[in-house]
């Protein structure tokens, strides 16, 4: 029954098989699970749900509806394109963890219950952290550590919320939360951390720029967008999210002005773009949810494309900072053109994908009466074009040329960029296939006179301002403090109360548990001797006969264990 198979299975099997095939075939094998998943999704029908009994609950590893299908399609597509971009890669660890990461992202979106969701949520955290560590530099090691600590903290909050929810309602089902209970707030914070809602967003701009060239492509696609999915499923219409989304959209813009590292600039614009989606979810009308999910779909395509362009620069030159780059365009003209397709898409340029999805979201805000939100989202849109569309390409590919000898660009990187650019253009020109995937029926014409006029004026005059003030925008070899300052500045203390404290507590529990086991074993082996324990606290040698010792010991051990179990049972419940 292929229409009942959860898609993550394909990816996990692929990850298992990958190390077993010859090295040269591994990056090609990487493409099999996403292709198989696309075929699988084509056979899915809405309403399918697979339930598996587990203890006294029902787990739902597969729930197919319009919302989960949309994310299923785009995640599989993103894995395929990312896999093509990484065809030259010879690093099995990265390939395996990228497959597990993609698989668990699909696991999250098709999970119908909170426990299944949580398990995949944690697998995502670990496997994506590996994509940071895999760069194998001291900087990326430390950034990966911070990344996983923060995500494990978020995961713990999520688990706490899930357990509270289970205690309150007795159900693990994952549906929209309507009441502001402590459980739903904890779950919301857990989701918000992965969605990079300030002040819980700093992990993103901290870790993504330090990830491997190919790993960052997957990271830009999955973590924040699974969180968008969970917010859209669990918290549509929560007013708080409207304001959170607007703050995100502008926060990313301000920090992108200050960013010097090209992938940090792009990372801050993930925060900004996810702000549109979060705001749309907060508005919560059918049109706004359509806009938010459509924007998630197009965002994965254009942000992946932008990260691929930045990745080519880093791959070929070994440099990633605007203050060290410039004048590269004649080494990679095709890459520049393809990057610009992504840049125009994210900027909402007519003919490209972002124009469609952003228009739906912003119009939904207008129809719902949130007029200030409309103006602020337009402001964020100006910032997006300014940085991603103008500042980054200008100072990377134009501007004064620095001295370097770039390596040739692998063909597969360009091919992946071309596919992503084609998809962005296709959706921009012909949004119907995207419309058909959206959670609610939509009848929306992005290309009317008012929309095109608005985009033309905004973009043209943003360009004019950029050109007049471009001397202010060059990269500065400095960093801008963000909310990660809270745990990075007092690193020694936060390390003590964070990872160290957990390790200490874990160690104490482990020692206690092993101590109890050891005591029971000793008691069982020689109860008479144990009871005659001498004053120094040591255990005297065997005194009773062997047969007596063994039978008596077994009896005592059983009694002690049963007592322990009964005691714990009474204590806990």
């Amino acid at each position, binding site marked *: 029954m292929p229409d009942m198979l959860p898609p993550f299975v394909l990816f996990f099997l692929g990850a298992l098989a990958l190390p077993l095939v010859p090295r040269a075939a591994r990056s090609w094998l990487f493409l099999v699970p996403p292709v198989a998943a696309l075929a699988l999704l084509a056979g899915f029908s809405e309403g399918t749900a697979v339930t598996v009994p587990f203890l006294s609950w029902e787990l739902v590893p597969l729930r197919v509806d319009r919302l989960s299908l949309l994310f299923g399609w785009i995640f599989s597509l993103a894995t395929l394109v990312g896999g093509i971009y990484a065809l030259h890669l010879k690093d099995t660890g990265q390939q395996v963890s990228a497959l597990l990461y993609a698989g668990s992202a699909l696991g999250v979106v098709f999970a119908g219950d909170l426990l299944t969701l949580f398990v995949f949520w944690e697998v995502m955290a670990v496997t994506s952290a590996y994509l940071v560590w895999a760069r194998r530099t001291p900087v990326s*090691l430390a950034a990966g550590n911070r990344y996983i600590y923060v995500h494990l903290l978020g995961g713990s909050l999520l688990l706490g919320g899930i357990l509270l929810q289970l205690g309150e309602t007795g159900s693990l089902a994952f549906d929209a939360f309507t009441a502001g209970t402590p459980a739903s707030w904890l779950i919301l914070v857990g989701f918000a951390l992965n969605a990079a809602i300030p002040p819980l967003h700093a992990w993103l701009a901290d870790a993504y720029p330090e990830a491997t060239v190919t790993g960052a492509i997957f990271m830009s696609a999955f973590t924040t967008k699974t969180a968008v999915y969970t917010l859209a499923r669990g918290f549509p219409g929560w007013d708080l999210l409207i304001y959170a989304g607007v703050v995100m959209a502008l926060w990313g813009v301000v920090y992108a002005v200050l960013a010097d590292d090209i992938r940090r600039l792009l990372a801050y614009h993930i925060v900004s773009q996810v702000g549109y989606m979060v705001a749309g979810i907060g508005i919560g009308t059918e049109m706004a949810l359509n806009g938010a999910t459509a924007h998630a779909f197009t965002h994965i395509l254009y942000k992946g494309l932008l990260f691929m362009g930045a990745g080519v620069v880093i791959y070929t030159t*070994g440099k990633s900072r605007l203050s060290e780059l410039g004048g590269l365009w004649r080494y990679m003209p095709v890459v520049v053109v393809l990057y610009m397709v992504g840049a125009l898409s994210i900027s909402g340029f007519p003919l490209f994908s972002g124009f469609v999805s952003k228009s739906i979201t912003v119009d939904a805000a207008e129809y719902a009466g949130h007029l200030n939100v*409309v103006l602020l989202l337009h402001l964020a849109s100006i910032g997006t074009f300014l940085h991603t569309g103008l500042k980054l390409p200008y100072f990377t590919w134009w501007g004064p040329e620095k001295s370097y000898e770039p390596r040739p660009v692998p063909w597969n990187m360009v091919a992946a960029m071309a596919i992503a650019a084609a998809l962005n253009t296709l959706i921009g020109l012909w949004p119907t296939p995207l419309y058909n995937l959206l959670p609610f029926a939509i009848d929306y014409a992005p290309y009317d006179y008012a929309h095109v006029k608005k985009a033309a004026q905004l973009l043209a005059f943003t360009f004019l301002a950029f050109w007049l003030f471009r001397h202010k925008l060059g990269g500065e070899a400095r960093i801008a403090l963000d909310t990660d300052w809270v745990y990075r500045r007092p690193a020694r203390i936060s390390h003590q109360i964070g990872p160290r404290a957990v390790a200490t507590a874990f160690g104490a529990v482990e020692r206690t548990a092993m101590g109890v086991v050891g005591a029971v074993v000793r008691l069982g082996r020689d109860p008479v001797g144990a009871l005659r324990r001498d004053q120094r606290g040591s255990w005297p040698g065997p005194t009773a006969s062997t047969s007596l010792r063994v039978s008596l010991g077994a009896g005592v051990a059983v009694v002690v264990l049963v007592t322990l179990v009964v005691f714990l049972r009474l204590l806990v419940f």
Partner: protein
Amino acid sequence: MSRTWSIVLGVVLVASVAMSFVGPSKEAEHIWDVKAFFAVYGFVGCVVIIYVSKAVGKYWLQRPDAYYEPYRAPAEVGEAGRDTPEAKEADHA
């Protein structure tokens, strides 16, 4: 910018504003229904973003590159620069 490109930019700017004065327009309901609103908003917004962000950075947020160097967690000790040979090798792998 070459002369040709300056002319192209000028034409685009004028044409985009002209779209507010020719073609269909609806009655002003919101502030953005004012003619050429988005031209002004685009320009002013962009300048505001640049200056506000730069000021926030300069007077509050920006620090030297090595700011966090003295504040490492024990696990991070040994952290060196980003352009190490390993980094380049990993990028090229």
